[in-house]
């Protein structure tokens, strides 16, 4: 091993990525398979003058990091299954108030207590629609230990830049597996800070509908004396029931994500140039799908892989173009067809889409995918 190479777990890479991105506040509540992230943060943050707190539950953890974010800190929480369900109301509050924060979800088998140590991808739609009301959200999905590091940095940067909650969607396999990685040094990492107001406090509008669509955010305690509420609010942040105000603010919130889509949408393509069979897979399942592509290629079957890294918003334009070039699409997922719904919506006019769904606590093996490909061919 080279001197910088280390054999580490996905959860550790995630915690180290957060720290590298400038996260200095963590609140959480223990739950398998995400607990290692809290443990690492409890050890590392105070050494960096950061703060760790174990709250009384996940509702409190989510609320706590939002409060901390308003003071200007970069914040993180991590949880799984039941804990992520408990966080939903406060995640909606972060959406509504446009408070930067990152939520790591190390997915386990659900619903309910389900399978604490079993991997699953059953929270894809929860990440999109788990909290009530229409709202935009960003969710990123790593499939390797290295990517747990880099994508957590990206998540923190997105949260800060776009003033939004961002999910990092690991699954138990990605979170617990160990891989050899050489992580980049601090000077190789791009770190983004939220935009802060430069105007005098009297002129400050925390929800201004300006050109960037992303209003500047003042740290509590810096004299701006602004109001934050989960009620619909006008540009000044105070509650408003005026339909025009609600409409304008809501449209800004949605348009913000559309405007920066080119930066937010991330994906990876493997062997897609001449592909006739396209696999669409993410997280740990993408690893099996990649292996399946290799096997199929040795058999002369032109298979390729499209791996969405940003799953919400969904990178639909690029996938639609690919769909026009292939004969069949297969979506293997450790759920009963959640991202499949999205792929089908986007691609069904172009090509046939089938799913390979598995919810039995075991990962989807490459030969299960190759068998499915041979079946649909």
């Amino acid at each position, binding site marked *: 091993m080279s001197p910088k190479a280390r054999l580490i777990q996905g959860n550790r890479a995630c915690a180290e990525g957060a720290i590298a991105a400038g996260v200095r506040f963590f609140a959480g509540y223990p739950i398998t398979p995400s607990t290692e992230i809290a443990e690492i943060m409890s050890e590392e943050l105070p050494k960096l003058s950061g703060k760790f707190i174990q709250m009384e539950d996940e509702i409190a953890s989510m609320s*706590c990091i939002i409060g901390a974010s308003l003071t200007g800190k970069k914040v993180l929480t991590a949880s799984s299954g039941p804990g992520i369900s408990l966080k939903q109301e406060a995640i909606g509050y972060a959406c509504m108030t446009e408070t930067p924060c990152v939520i790591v979800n190390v997915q386990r088998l659900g619903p309910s207590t389900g399978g604490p140590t079993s991997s699953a991808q059953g929270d894809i739609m929860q990440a999109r629609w788990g909290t009530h009301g229409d709202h935009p959200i960003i969710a990123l999905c790593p499939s390797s230990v290295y990517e747990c590091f880099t994508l957590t940095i990206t998540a923190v940067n997105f949260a800060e830049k776009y003033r939004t909650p961002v999910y990092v969607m690991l699954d138990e396999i990605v979170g617990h597996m160990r891989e050899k990685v050489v992580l980049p040094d601090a000077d190789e990492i791009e770190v983004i800070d939220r935009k802060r107001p430069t105007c005098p406090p009297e002129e400050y509008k925390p929800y201004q509908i300006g050109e960037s669509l992303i209003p500047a955010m003042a740290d509590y305690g810096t004299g701006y004396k*602004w109001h934050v509420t989960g009620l619909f609010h006008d540009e000044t942040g105070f509650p408003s029931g005026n339909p025009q105000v609600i409409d304008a603010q809501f449209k800004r919130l949605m348009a913000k994500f559309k405007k920066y889509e080119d930066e937010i949408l991330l994906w990876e393509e493997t062997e897609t140039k001449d592909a006739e069979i396209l696999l669409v897979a993410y997280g740990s399942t993408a690893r099996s799908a990649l292996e399946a592509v290799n096997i199929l290629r040795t058999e002369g079957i032109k298979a390729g892989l499209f791996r969405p890294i940003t799953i919400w918003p969904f990178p639909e334009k690029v996938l639609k173009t690919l769909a026009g070039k292939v004969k069949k699409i297969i979506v293997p997922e450790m759920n009963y067809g959640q991202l499949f719904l999205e792929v089908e919506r986007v691609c069904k006019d172009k090509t046939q889409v089938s799913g390979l769904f598995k919810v039995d606590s075991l990962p989807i093996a490459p030969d299960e995918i190759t068998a499915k490909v041979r079946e649909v061919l």
Partner: protein
Amino acid sequence: MRPELQKLFRMEKLPHIWCPGCGHGIITRAIGEAIAESDINLDKTVIVSGIGCSSRAPGYMNFDTLHTLHGRALAFATGVKLANPELNVFVITGDGDATAIGGNHFIHAARRNIDLNVILFNNNIYGMTGGQYSPLTPTGKMASTSPYGNPENNFDIPALAIAAGASYVARGTAFHDKLLIECIKEGIKNKGFSLIEAMSMCPTSYGRRNKMGNAADMLNDLKRIAVNINVAKKLPPEKLEGKFLIGKLHHKPYPEFTQEYDKLILKLQKGAE
């Protein structure tokens, strides 16, 4: 309002949303008075609330203000205070907000002895949603969800706070506003979790249903039922039947959470040198 007090309020946001005769306005003003008479940096003061009629108060107050989720004010406030211990953090909450949906956060914030000044507006009812019974609605009283009289028992909020670890606990009322101001001021001085239960009144959703007369009658009830703790000490127990105590009920300073955390940081950094 005198000018020193005016600058603590967002005068342009008035009139407030509270019903005529609501006790919440008097208590909100008392908080303003206590802040005006305390030596704290107004730019470094944050007021956090949950959801309810009482939790609307911060919207009228000229500070960094955070109107959060029902029951979660203390969890948000814990994040604010721990992230930046320089800030003076106040929490405004209702009886339902703090002791029903937020009961868990209430005992844990007290247990940590984190430096928050909590003013709990107790009107014995869920005011905002139209008068359902709360953990503080007296047994037997009418509420929209206890049409045959409330069958449940109450919390004793100060006893709960003391048992959980609050280092300063006091009670005032909308009638005894001078005392309330003094209690809030003492709470501000206490470096730790301070809980001030402020007995309020809700003529609209509680008084009317329980035939308690008008707002003036309800204020008079507060006057009649409250006994100052210093007076109570000299009274035989039978004289205190059906009464509640007001004044400073508990003050026992001990190490505060965010200061202890900062000591840990210092220790780790010294160790690293």
